[in-house]
């Protein structure tokens, strides 16, 4: 905690302001700053507004850096949203601003102006979510923080009484700016007794303003929409001070019914504190955690596991959530901490299953001289409603698979597992791929749920094997073939099924394939194909391959 010796003059005025009764001192403060006194009112609060002027662009840049392709600073870059007539510029970087690109213009127009302008899609939803996360992050300064994204992006913090923890108000604002810049955001904080005044100062006031005079600020600083601002300008009212000098009655008559964004009176009252505008923060997401505190250190936690799992699942059930990640933390008596983590393919709150996931790995813990606190946490959860699989009360088979996956993953590691998935491709070897089991988005994979029209063999050779075939030139079916030094005489055949190369993927010159299903005299069924046609101009005589075996 810093001393007050070095505190600025402004800090002194805080004390006066925060004492409700000292109206004389307040009058002195207000008049001294050219503000009409009649409008000012005590709020007793100290509100910080932080303006993040470049929030969407900086967040996008950070994302690009994380993905390993940091965007060059000197190339003009824009983020766009879909407008009625094509993409509209949502955010730009410095280079783009210098090149004359404007926010709100159409991308096509701006491209004409600046041909090198790069564009990516903006993510306003993601920005909003990130801003709310940032608001939670800002709790380090005070407990009341909210995201302010009504106009632009910003944060609002009610730091009343908490500034001394950060070395006073001036130091706190500097600290905020520094901390946000470490995150990659340029920020302009300002402090005032009301939200409205802090908002105005952050955007239009001096750098890191603390209770600076709002009278000379333009009326735009009142959080009014463009139409209201235009009207005030036409009326010759350009500064907040000019507006504040007008008789209240005249303003009230003219703006009584207007919504807040169009109503200078409401905004003025919010600025001066006549209208309260409290900072009501969002709740941080709940923490799910069950602890077992032991009277005596023990060496084997397994007896406590079922109870912990039950407790944790009880908490989850109450919140209608299921966990995707599970963490067991064991606090040893000698101060060491060990952790075991497990993950679920689908959100789960089944105590038996969770216990099972942990049980096999408990022996990896070095108990040392024993431990006295076991804590089970659910760091990642997802919404999970209570469901009934079927009316007969049977088991949900999908769940069983998910639990199997979890158990195998615990034992062999996630990388050891894969699941075959159908891919919509006519080319047989491309018709399936290995994927993470139960990976999200499998349902939206191209061609999921579709199948080729013709039958495919149970066994597909990884590499088709060339065979010698006797057939009627040019397009006849195979009559006899030799595979792995054995002769087969074809008794029956079906086909051909012609599969052309995927022109967008295959090298030019790839030949088409004519697949035949054949059955030899012994009843073995094979899948053969002839690669190419005699006159396709893509090589010599067609070659034959055996690609699969039917059961």
């Amino acid at each position, binding site marked *: 905690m810093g001393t007050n010796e070095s505190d600025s003059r402004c800090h002194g005025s805080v004390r006066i302001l925060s004492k409700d009764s000292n109206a004389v001192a307040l009058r002195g403060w207000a008049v001294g700053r050219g503000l009409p006194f009649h409008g000012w009112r005590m709020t007793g609060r100290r509100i910080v507004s932080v303006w993040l002027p470049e929030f969407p662009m900086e967040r996008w840049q950070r994302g690009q850096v994380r993905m390993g392709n940091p965007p060059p600073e000197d190339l003009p870059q824009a983020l766009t949203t879909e407008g009625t007539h094509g993409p509209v510029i949502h955010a730009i970087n410095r280079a783009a601003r210098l090149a004359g690109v404007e926010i709100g213009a159409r991308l096509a127009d701006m*491209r004409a102006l600046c041909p090198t302008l790069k564009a990516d899609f903006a993510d306003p939803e993601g920005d909003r979510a990130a801003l709310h996360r940032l608001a939670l992050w800002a709790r380090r300064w005070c407990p009341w923080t909210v995201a302010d994204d009504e106009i632009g992006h910003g944060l609002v913090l009610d730091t009343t009484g908490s500034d001394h923890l950060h070395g006073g108000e001036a130091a706190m604002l500097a600290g905020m700016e520094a901390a946000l810049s470490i995150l990659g955001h340029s920020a302009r904080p300002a402090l005032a007794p009301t939200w409205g005044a802090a908002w105005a100062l952050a955007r239009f006031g001096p750098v890191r303003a603390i209770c600076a005079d709002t009278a000379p600020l333009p009326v735009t600083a009142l959080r009014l929409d463009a139409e209201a601002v235009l009207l005030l*300008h036409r009326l010759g009212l350009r500064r907040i001070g000019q507006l504040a000098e007008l008789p209240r*009655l005249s303003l009230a008559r003219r703006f009584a*019914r207007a919504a807040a964004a169009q109503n200078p009176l409401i905004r003025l009252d919010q600025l001066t504190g006549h209208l309260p505008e409290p900072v009501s923060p969002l709740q941080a997401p709940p923490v799910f955690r069950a602890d077992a505190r032991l009277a005596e250190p023990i060496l084997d936690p397994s007896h406590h596991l079922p109870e912990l799992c039950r407790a944790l699942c009880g908490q989850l059930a109450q919140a209608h959530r299921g966990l995707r990640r599970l963490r067991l933390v064991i606090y040893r008596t000698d101060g060491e901490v060990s952790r075991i983590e497990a993950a679920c393919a689908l959100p789960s709150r089944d105590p038996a299953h969770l216990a099972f996931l942990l049980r096999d790995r408990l022996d990896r813990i070095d108990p040392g001289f024993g431990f006295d606190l076991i804590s089970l946490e659910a760091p990642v959860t997802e919404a999970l409603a209570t469901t009934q699989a079927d009316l007969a009360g049977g088991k949900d088979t999908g769940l069983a698979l998910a639990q199997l996956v979890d158990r195998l993953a615990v034992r062999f590691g996630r990388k050891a597992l894969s699941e075959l998935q159908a891919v919509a491709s*006519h080319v047989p070897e491309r018709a399936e791929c290995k994927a993470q089991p139960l990976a999200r988005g499998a349902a939206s994979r191209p061609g999921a749920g579709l199948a080729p029209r013709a039958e495919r063999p149970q066994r597909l050779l990884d590499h088709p094997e060339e065979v010698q075939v006797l057939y009627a030139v040019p397009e006849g079916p195979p009559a006899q073939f030799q595979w792995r030094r054995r002769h087969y005489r074809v008794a029956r055949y079906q086909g051909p099924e012609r599969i*052309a190369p995927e022109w967008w993927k295959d090298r030019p010159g790839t030949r088409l394939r004519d697949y035949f299903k054949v059955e030899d005299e012994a009843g073995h069924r094979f899948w053969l194909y002839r690669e190419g046609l005699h006159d396709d101009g893509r090589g010599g005589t067609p070659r034959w391959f055996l690609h699969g075996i039917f059961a």
Partner: protein
Amino acid sequence: MPDSGPKSLRKSLTGAFPPNPRAGYVELGVTTPFSFLRGASDAAELAATAHALGYDALGVADLNTMAGVVRLHAEARRANLRPVIGCRLRLVTGEEFLAYPRDRDAYGRLCTLLTKGKRQDLDEGWQAKGLCDITLDDLACHAEGVQLIVVPDAALPRRLAELVRCLPGLRHIAVSYLYQGDDRARINRLDRLARAHGLSILATNDVHYHAPDRRPLQDVMTCIREGTTIHRAGFLLAANAERHLKSPAEMARLFADWPHALQATRTVADACNFSLQELAYHYPQETVPPGETAQSQLEKLTWAGAARRYPAGLSQKVRELLVKELHIIGLKKIPQYFLTIHEIVLWARAQGILCQGRGSAANSAVCFVLGITSVDPTEQELLFERFISIDRDEPPDIDVDFEHERREEVIQHIYEKYGRHRAGLCATVIHYRPRSAIREVGKAMGLSEDVTSALAKTVWGSWGTSMGEANSREAGIDLTDPLMARTIRLAEQMIGMPRHLSQHVGGFILTEESLHQTVPIGNAAMPDRSFIEWDKDDIDELGILKIDVLALGMLTCIRKCFGLLKNHYGVDLDLATIPPDDEPTYDMLCRGDSVGVFQVESRAQMNMLPRLKPRRFYDLVVEVAIVRPGPIQGDMVHPYLRRRDGREPEDYPSPAPPHDPDELRHILGRTYGVPIFQEQAMKIAMVAAEFSSQEANALRKAMATFRSRGTIGTLEELMVGRMIARGYDPDFARRCFDQIKGFGDYGFPESHAVSFALLVYVSSWMKCHYPAAFACALLNSQPMGFYAPAQIVRDVREHGVEVRPVDVNFSEWDSTLEPAGGGFALRLGLRQVDGLGREAAERLLRVREDPFTSLSDLALHARLNGRAIRLLAAADAFGSLGLTRRAALWEARALRDAPDLPLFRPGQDEGEETPVALPAMPLCEQVVADYQTLRLSLKAHPMAFLRASLTRQRFVRAADLAALPNNRRLSLAGLVLVRQRPGSAKGVCFITLEDETGVANLVVWPKVMASFRKVIMTARLMQVTGRLQRDPASGVTHVVADSLVDRSDVLLRLSDRGFTPPLSRADEVRHSIPAPTQGHPRNARIIPGSRDFH
């Protein structure tokens, strides 16, 4: 073809196609590109391939449409094949049929069925555009005489019994051998199924493209249709490329086991006794009274009209002309066409709607005496038979322009008179253009928006309308990348493929019988509009007549001006009675003083006027046609000017001796030996290069398609070669061809130029003699023309007319004329107030008996809502009440926006209002607010506030330019009015600046453009340093820019709110130039794009 915006991209077959012997198989399952985004080969490719493969007939069956049949019909006949016309029907329940009508009646039923599906949804509501809902019941009701072939799906075995019961015409099941692995088994299964129901199988190859190598394009089309990319499309795509046109021999090999399937195709095709040529066209009979034939009625009307037009009696010349024309009309059997147009024009005139005809047939004496046109043919040497030739079987062409504000009335009259079942708008086929093709193909190929737009700009930029000339390196695109190369190749194939149908700007077809028995009719996206499925080329192909009912803003203006002249000056005139050959009018035009005048008001035209110095009507015809890319690209402008001034001898290149040495003199005599008009260029091809009318037609069509295609090259060789062979100068031959090339895009025919020239003359005459009335009419006809109201007002004030501001006590909705001194002053109308609704204004005008005395008085009586009053206050319209803008706004804000109930009558609940002293509004802010609310200011010009500082910095004013010596270096500043970069000017950019004294024209060479690109594109106030350049002949001055500075920041000083002065409507940066790719054809400009030229 100046009447519709985008050019048709139709490809057409030429060459000899000897007839094939009768083949054993006819392909019936043919999908053309008119099954939108399904078929990947156009009619010409299909027909040519079918002919080469040995077919003698070819079917066409597009999905729920007849839109493509005319093209296939035409191309098949050109390739000596018999077209078999049908369609593919898909019911709402999923069954699919190929439907082939046996005769004309069955065809009519099929069209009726499609019309029903396209006009009404299943609940009989208004069908959305592009959908077609047909149920089995609908089909059963309209299936008489239609041969149906069911296309099998998985449900067929279950459904077949019911289908057979409902549809007696169902005789076949379509089977295809498409190498799907189980083809034999499947065909055998279907064969058994068919037999069990007494049907037969019918072979088809389900043709989607003419050759296997079109599969990629078809795949890409599928992706575009399904909104996916090639990598995600999966089983939406076909496994192989077998759905191409296969030869009858190949089909016989594939169906060797089922000969009856092949035989069935022949049976079905032979049973189709229907050809599109049977769609004998019958004119509506309403126009012919009982007891008359169409010809006799036309003759009667003609002579009656002639007596009216020439009250002094007919001259021998006119009489002969009329007799000759009537004779040709009789021979061509088109009197009803003239009668129908006459009826519409007569009706419009009775309603007071101004109209004028133009087009090849319109410049006839018959049209003049019938009142369709107002250009006296005896004074112009336009020969009728040059346009309607007896040997060429082409329909005559008359477009009728109506006032743009009232054209809808004419359209509704046509619907009312002939019925919606007999009158229909034509379609316009929207084709893929380079930009749309690369964009959509790129998207389907999985390229990002960034890359496709860069591609669209670089590779295709030269064909598009982009301002960018950045090459691909600059955009960072590697054209050697295989994916890029493939995308470009596919996009190239995609260009010209139809994308969807849209309604034509105004082309009507009228029939005697029900229209939906001739062609299906579908709904447009616009409410209450429906259009037929064929476009104007299709209609031409079938010889059906079309009447173009078009909209022209200048006619609105002229009609309003006629009204003003009558009411205020007591002068009663119409188009035909305007005093001809008026000296002061031509003097005015020679000065280039033509703001607001029809056609010749653009900067290029204004620069041309002092050089061309029009002194008679025909000069105006040339003036209208000469500032076009055609003459410019052919380098015909300067020779014309030189010869006209007598600085160069008229010279007619002539062929070598055996040919008539004067053959070109006949064609080019009127234009001093320089080809200016489209007709002249085509005529040169026909006379000097001995093109047959077919070849000339091919030439015209080749011009309309894309220049990249090879046909042009061969035609160029043909034409130039033949001209040289006949002894012409090679250089001249090449120039002739270059000009035709230009005409391909922006050709301007003399037949249209004459009608336009009349409007030029009429509007010039008005401007010259009644500038106040003309400006007033112009303002009341907005939006139209080249200039924004600010420039019109400025021009009229320069002509000494007093312009008075908008005022609630004096202004009408329209701008009006008020007596002032000896003449009239122009009072701006309430329509000038941005955002004020007409209804609110009308309410105000209704109660304005005595002048309003206060704001609340006005609000109370006119019951205007608060918003309207605030708009009026912001527009400073309360001057006569003694309220300044600011005071009015402050007062207006206090008015209640409440219903007029006793309780809410204005009372001061809150107590007495204390007067508030608002700061006075400085003049510069007044001007800015004027621009923001009225888009013009009468108080001052924004530049006037900067003049003191500018003068200190030695900037000159626009008005000073005339006095400065040539080549003088100077600096100048002004608001940007127009920025243009005409395609014909080789990258030169033209900018017009305006200051308080006048306008200055800048020329920016490409090199300067490259370095000051950003300034040019964004600056609203520009400061330029350059050199004065004056054309000695015409006195036209330009400033050739060396450097440009964006000083838009200065505007901010006038008012700290953003202030954007209005640009001219022709500015190419804000409003993209009206080039073919831009916008919906419905909104296309009717007047052929005038591309500016210096």
